[in-house]
């Protein structure tokens, strides 16, 4: 197969597979078990396709682009994969597969007849599309695809709490996408182009620097709201804890990451060096996000609420990479984002298993799980300690790079904030550990303690075990991912020209 056709195929497959699963799943809505098989097949096929794409991008040593319909670059729709986006697609596929397996632990549920599976595939379509989009308008469209699927996933088959959460989630996220579309319109008005590589060439030529900075702030606001950055995160703790474990895992692992990815893509490619004060804004947002997120986690006594606030705290840590913006900082953020996808999916799946084994999410009603389910305890402890950034787990290495880059850039406040946020996150995680696993079971249990059957246990804990083992092995054997993250950081900073050449075909600026 010629190289160009191979790149085309590899870039289209991560979109075609979820789309196909979505369409077929909608046809099969009456048959939950058939839909399950379809989701499993699509998830593992997507995983294989994403790994092939990642290997292709890594082998090429530079970004890979494909022009849809053969329209030349600044005019048509472009799909681009560099190391960061290919790795994120692979991580997303892994979460999709883990959730697909986890969902088989129960018998067929009513939700599955209410289009749960097509919506999940639609969500993956939006997520993969956003990672691979080569122009800002398509980025917006993929955000909307992801958003409408996530509204559905949150609301279908739900009760009163889900409706309450859905209303708030919908209203605030629709404002965010409207702001995003407005920012896209202004950027188009200033430069006459939407292609991100073309924008990278034209935005520095715009004379009205104040307008460019204003548009950059609008993008930051829109992506920040998606990513649940301070002060725009209120929708997240109001909604994530009401989702089912599978949906919560996908939301926590992927949705905020897409917002973070948007910040990284635009602020390294298009808005690099827009204004002197921009790193200060990003740094303040990052520090405030991680401190408020982790402190919020400490204020709660419910497993899911604690995890939801920790999602916010981690977003702050990732944004440090965009604030410091040296190659080392971006490498640290890439490392942290990738391990955080695994950790967040793992924690929410384990929370579902805690609910199953202990009968509640409220810490007051839980206890004694370590004695009854030691494997569950281990599977909670590994991602929880990685979230806090303790060695030898994967989160430690991401934070090492971020703190070191902060110290090298003399951004001491940021470096200290990362460490403090790690400590507070550790405290909130250990609270779940001591209350749910270590203390004696309370006298009056809300529901009769449930003893998990063998098949149920393996289907629920198997995906969590794979994710936890990956977190552990990425911590113990961090060298390959570290080298990968450094290469990705290099691509996003010094290697910008390679991205432009891959998309625009090496054509000189007109």
């Amino acid at each position, binding site marked *: 197969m010629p190289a160009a056709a191979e790149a085309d195929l590899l870039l289209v497959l991560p979109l075609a597979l979820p789309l196909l699963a979505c369409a077929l799943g909608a046809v099969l809505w009456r048959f939950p078990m058939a839909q399950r098989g379809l989701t499993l097949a699509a998830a593992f096929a997507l995983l294989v396709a994403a790994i092939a794409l990642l290997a292709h991008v890594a082998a090429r040593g530079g970004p890979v682009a494909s022009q849809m319909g053969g329209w030349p670059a600044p005019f048509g729709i472009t799909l681009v994969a560099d190391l960061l986006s290919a790795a994120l697609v692979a991580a997303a596929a892994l979460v999709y597969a883990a959730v697909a397996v986890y969902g088989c632990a129960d018998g067929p549920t009513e939700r599955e007849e209410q289009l749960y599976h097509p919506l999940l595939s639609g969500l993956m379509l939006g997520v993969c599309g956003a990672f691979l989009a080569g122009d800002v308008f398509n980025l917006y469209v993929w955000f909307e695809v992801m958003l409408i699927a996530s509204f559905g996933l949150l609301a279908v088959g739900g009760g009163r709490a889900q409706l309450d959460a859905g209303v*708030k989630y919908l209203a605030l996220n629709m404002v965010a996408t409207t702001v995003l579309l407005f920012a896209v319109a202004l950027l188009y008005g200033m430069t006459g182009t939407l292609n991100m590589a073309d924008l990278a060439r034209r935005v520095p030529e715009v004379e009205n620097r104040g307008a460019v900075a204003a548009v950059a702030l609008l993008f930051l606001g829109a992506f920040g709201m998606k990513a649940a950055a301070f002060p725009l995160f209120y929708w997240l703790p109001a909604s994530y804890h009401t989702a089912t474990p599978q949906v919560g895992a996908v939301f926590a692992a992927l949705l905020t990451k897409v917002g973070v990815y948007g910040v990284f893509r635009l602020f390294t490619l298009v808005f690099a060096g827009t204004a002197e004060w921009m790193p200060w804004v990003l740094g303040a947002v990052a520090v405030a996000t991680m401190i408020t997120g982790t402190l919020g986690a400490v204020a709660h006594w419910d497993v899911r609420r604690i995890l939801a606030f920790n999602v916010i705290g981690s977003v702050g840590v990732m944004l440090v990479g965009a604030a410091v913006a040296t190659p080392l900082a971006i490498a640290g953020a890439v490392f942290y984002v990738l391990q955080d996808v695994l950790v967040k999916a793992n924690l929410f799946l384990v929370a579902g298993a805690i609910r199953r084994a202990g009968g509640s999410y409220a810490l007051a009603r839980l206890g004694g799980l370590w004695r009854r389910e030691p494997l569950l305890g281990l599977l909670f402890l590994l991602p929880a300690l990685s979230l806090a950034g303790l060695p030898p787990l994967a989160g430690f290495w991401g934070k090492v790079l971020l703190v070191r880059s902060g110290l090298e850039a003399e951004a001491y406040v940021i470096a200290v904030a990362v460490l403090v946020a790690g400590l507070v996150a550790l405290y909130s995680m250990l609270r779940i550990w001591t209350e749910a696993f270590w203390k004696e079971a309370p006298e009056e249990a809300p529901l009769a303690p449930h003893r998990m059957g063998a098949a149920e246990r393996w289907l629920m804990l198997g995906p969590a075990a794979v994710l936890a083992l990956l977190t552990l092995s990425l911590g113990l054997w961090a060298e390959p991912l570290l080298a990968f993250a450094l290469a990705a950081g290099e691509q996003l900073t010094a290697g910008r020209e390679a991205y432009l050449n891959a998309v625009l075909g090496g054509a000189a600026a007109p």
Partner: protein
Amino acid sequence: MDELLALAFGALLAGGTYLMLARTLLRVAVGLLLLSNAVNIAIFAAGRVLGRIPPLVEPGAQALAAGTANPLPQALILTAIVISFGLTAFSLVLVHAAHRAYGTVDPDALREAEPPGLPAADPAAAAAAEPPTRRPPPTPAAREAA
């Protein structure tokens, strides 16, 4: 023409923001609709209002003639209209479902995801503040059967 578009944008933005501040979910949904239409006008203005000639390339020519309309904003707006139509339809259904479940459309009265009393000082108080897990409202088919 640009002035008119700017005025329309401002009016829609102001109306949309005003409605979104209301304590009625239906008004919030209409406010979001107005807001997305304000942005559609912004896209239209961003593409410059150049002329009235349809953007078709004459046979034999390589580019559009002077004075043709810019086709790209129209494609963008068409996409945005379809998206906002879908989202508005969904939000109206969600508001309807919330009204059926809670009997009100006042967003301040929807407190089940974030109950009053949280965050609490100790685990027992936090557990007590959580609403009891209730079954989802019956579907119309189930109600008919009952």
